[in-house]
């Protein structure tokens, strides 16, 4: 009997601790989940934001969207806008608020090459299609006049895991190469026609560092932190653009539609770097769901408002591109359109 009693006690104690945990999570900490790309920036901003506590789980864009669909978080964050299937699964309209923008750079391992490589979008797609197979092919030579390129086979390396980085990269290739659009298309995971897959940024970067002739794509911040070389990419206006934070911000300084769900790859801006994208915070337009309090909804919107204004100061030191002026304007409008019981919150 004693054993039974102690077992009962233990069960009660465990149950109580669970209740306590969920209660504390619901208290006043705002919950977010999603993109791993934006995580370093968010954790910096949230640590400095004093008005409310925020708990952001970097589980990947897809996971963040799923959590928001299940209404277990206050906001999600995704590197790609919701697709039709994901939108259909949401029980209510969802707002996309641009948080920052990031660039995807093309990095390579060509022994003996000192100056950064110039690549056109079409050739880049042909490399990843497996059509251009050697570093001293006529196409690459044409973009790099006077550069001594070795007779080395190109080893294409791509992400094997589903990722926002792959989405941005394939979105760009789809726009600049009709053959890519037809054969492969854009998604966070596609049927790669050539090359090796590496898991995560560290996986692809590791493979390229080890393999002479390797080429892959990573986020600008990752390439910078690891001192990897990256190529200048030709934009729509025909200029070869070095990926920098300024060039990335400029890429988004174009007219942005009201819902901000726009792809800024292959930007019209003549000074913009062409492989760039927003990352979006996702919230429900109508904030009165799951018996949330109005105070909580207001807190959430104030946090996002802070992110697109004061928070932007944290971008540059962490190698994120701050939002352009036109992007901030659109984001403000979108935040103001969020409602609680039909009435605007901000």
């Amino acid at each position, binding site marked *: 009997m004693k054993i039974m009693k102690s077992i009962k006690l233990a069960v009660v104690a465990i149950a109580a601790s669970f209740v306590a945990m969920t209660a504390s999570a619901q208290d006043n900490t705002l919950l977010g989940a999603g993109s791993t790309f934006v995580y370093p920036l968010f954790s910096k901003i949230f640590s400095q934001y004093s008005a409310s506590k925020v708990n952001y789980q970097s*589980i*990947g*864009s*897809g*996971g963040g*969207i799923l959590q928001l669909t299940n209404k277990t978080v206050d906001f999600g964050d995704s590197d790609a806008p919701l*697709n039709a*299937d*994901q939108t259909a699964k949401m029980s209510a309209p969802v707002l996309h608020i641009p948080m920052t923008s990031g660039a995807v750079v093309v990095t390579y391992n060509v022994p003996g090459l000192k100056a950064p490589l110039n690549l056109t979008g079409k050739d880049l797609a042909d490399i990843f299609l497996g059509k251009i197979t050697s570093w001293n092919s006529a196409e690459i030579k044409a973009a790099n006049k006077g550069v001594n390129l070795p007779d080395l*086979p190109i*080893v294409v390396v791509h992400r*094997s*895991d*589903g*990722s926002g980085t792959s989405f941005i990269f394939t979105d760009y290739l789809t726009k600049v190469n009709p053959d890519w659009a037809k054969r*492969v*298309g*854009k*998604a*966070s*995971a*596609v*049927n*790669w*026609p*050539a*090359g*090796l*897959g*590496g*898991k995560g940024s560290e*996986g692809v970067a*590791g*493979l390229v560092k*080890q*393999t002479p002739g390797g080429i892959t794509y990573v986020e600008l911040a990752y390439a910078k932190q690891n001192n990897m070389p990256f190529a200048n990419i030709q934009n729509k206006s025909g200029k070869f653009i070095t990926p920098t934070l300024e060039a990335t911000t400029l890429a988004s300084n174009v007219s942005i539609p009201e819902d901000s769900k726009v792809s800024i790859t292959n930007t019209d801006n003549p000074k913009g770097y062409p492989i760039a994208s927003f990352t979006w915070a996702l919230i429900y337009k109508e904030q009165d769901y799951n018996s949330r309090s109005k105070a909580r909804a207001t807190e959430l919107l104030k946090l996002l408002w802070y992110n697109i204004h004061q928070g932007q100061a944290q971008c540059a030191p962490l190698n994120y591109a701050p939002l352009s002026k036109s992007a901030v304007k659109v984001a403000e409008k979108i935040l103001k359109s969020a409602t609680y019981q039909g009435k605007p919150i901000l």
Partner: protein
Amino acid sequence: MSYLTDTIVKKRKMAENKRLALSNAQLKWENGFRGLLKAMAMVLVLIVIGVFITLVIESWASIKALGVGYLWGKVWDPVSNVYGAYPFLVGTLLTSFIALLISIPFSYAIAIYLGEYNPKGWLSDLLKNTVELIAAVPSVIYGFWALSVLVPMIRSLEIKWQIAPYGVGILTSSLILAVMVIPYGASLGITLIRMTPSQLKEGAYALGATRFEVIRKVVTPYTRSGLFAGVLLSLGRALGETMAVTMVIGNTSALAHTFKDMLFGPGNTMASVIANEFTEADHTEYLSALIELGLVLFCVTVIINIIGKRIITRFSNN
């Protein structure tokens, strides 16, 4: 005399009564304990059945849309919703069986050495503990080691042999898998070889047999089915291994056309595809196709285990 028998009978009766009274309480505990054990064992069966049912339900959309063709479809394209498991099925079986072939000589050698030649002493303890440690190291560490040490080694070999110098691929993942599964075959083998009745062995030695002859004629026949069970255990482990394989297999769903490419070129396994693509699978058909991949892996494991069990019973009957 009668008094004596009387008391004896009385005493015995009392003893019996006491024994009976005790028995009731004991019986209660005995039954309760047996029920508990049974329930615990049944929970496991229920979980396995539950996993199977979940896999079928969750992958139903894909099963309905793609049918049996899913198994030999060669294209895996999430963008246009075409899914075929064939490249991953081949990759899984290829890496697992090559790994098994590489690991068997090592695990048997270890088993025989530690089981028969050197069963006691500090060297034996050290070796046995090291083998067990191999099984305890997390697989991501093997993956990392393979990526930074094994891959460059394979790459330099490939350059020497004039093969595309990827470094990563089927062979590399088989090698790392072989290292990871050695302890499974080896530890079971050590235990079984030590369990060979010493009368049998001593009899053989008395007849003038050498150690090698004892191993060949006495120990091997006695432990054959057990050694095979160890191989089966290794195979199960190799089929499901995810992390280490993902890091060095090259993750491509394109099928190899030549024998060289098949062995040295990149590939992919079912477990690795699931691990790679599950978190970001952004539409229903895609998710469902990935879960069906899990179902196929589940079935492959079950089938291989059933075949293995058959072989074991056959060996034991002989």
